[in-house]
């Protein structure tokens, strides 16, 4: 791995922040399904989340089953540590 890869902690912080924005606006949209500003906000953060998850998976392994790339590795890396409740997990 080259040294140009992004800092793992920074990338995880970014994923947490944009994912949380998606979480909260999702609930708002459930009761306000026609709110255009909220829909726009959702789209913006959903995009940011998707690309951050993809980037994280590329350098540090998948956080979701959808970002598992079984071709890249010769073993199943979904089970790699850390798990979220462990030290170093998130």
């Amino acid at each position, binding site marked *: 791995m080259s040294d140009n890869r992004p800092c793992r902690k920074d990338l995880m912080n970014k994923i*947490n922040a944009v994912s949380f924005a998606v979480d909260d606006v999702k609930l708002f949209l*459930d009761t306000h*399904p026609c709110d255009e500003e909220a829909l726009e906000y959702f789209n913006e953060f959903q995009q940011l989340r998707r690309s951050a998850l993809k980037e994280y998976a590329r350098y540090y392994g998948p956080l979701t089953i959808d970002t598992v790339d079984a071709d890249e590795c010769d073993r199943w890396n979904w089970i790699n540590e850390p798990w*979220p409740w462990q030290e170093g997990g998130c």
Partner: protein
Amino acid sequence: MWNYEKRLQYPVKIKQTNPQIAQVIITQFGGPDGELAASMRYLAQRYTMPYKEVTGILTDIGTEELAHMEMICAIVHQLTRDLTPDEMIASGFDKYYVDHTLALWPQAASGAPWTAAYFQSKGDPITDLHEDMAAEQKARTTYENILRLVSEPDVVEPIRFLRKREIVHYQRFGESLRIVQDRLDSKNFYAFNPEFDRNTSKKCCN
């Protein structure tokens, strides 16, 4: 239904063990107003909810509560890691340890096991949403009680986060109730149960 993400909704990184406070915080895992009860409540109620916005809220908040349960379990796990027998005896944690070692098991702070009796799924939208709004307030109060007992920032921060989520959930359930009201006749919201009654008799007076 499910996808799983290998990430807590909010980070939990606790450096110092504390089995005493772990016995209190575990109540938000398996206690009467904890995250497991909240999740089961909302996920159970959604099947017969006749309004899609409310079904959406019950599903999305019901699954978010599972993520919160995971956070609470992470907190309890990190507070009880690598304890010595002396530490366990001194804190009273030995009573839990003897039955569960250091594993997580859903119980209240009192030791009472988790039970479905902690929630209701009544099958009437107005009733269920009032139950849900009350549940969020009970959870908020429980987190506030915990905050009065804890001063360690590593523990305080995720607990504070979880408390804030309860307030947001309360607002959403309140809006869900407004949506239900909007679909019923305001002259008498209680004329019938939209989850069950197909025909209503207009001849009924009272």
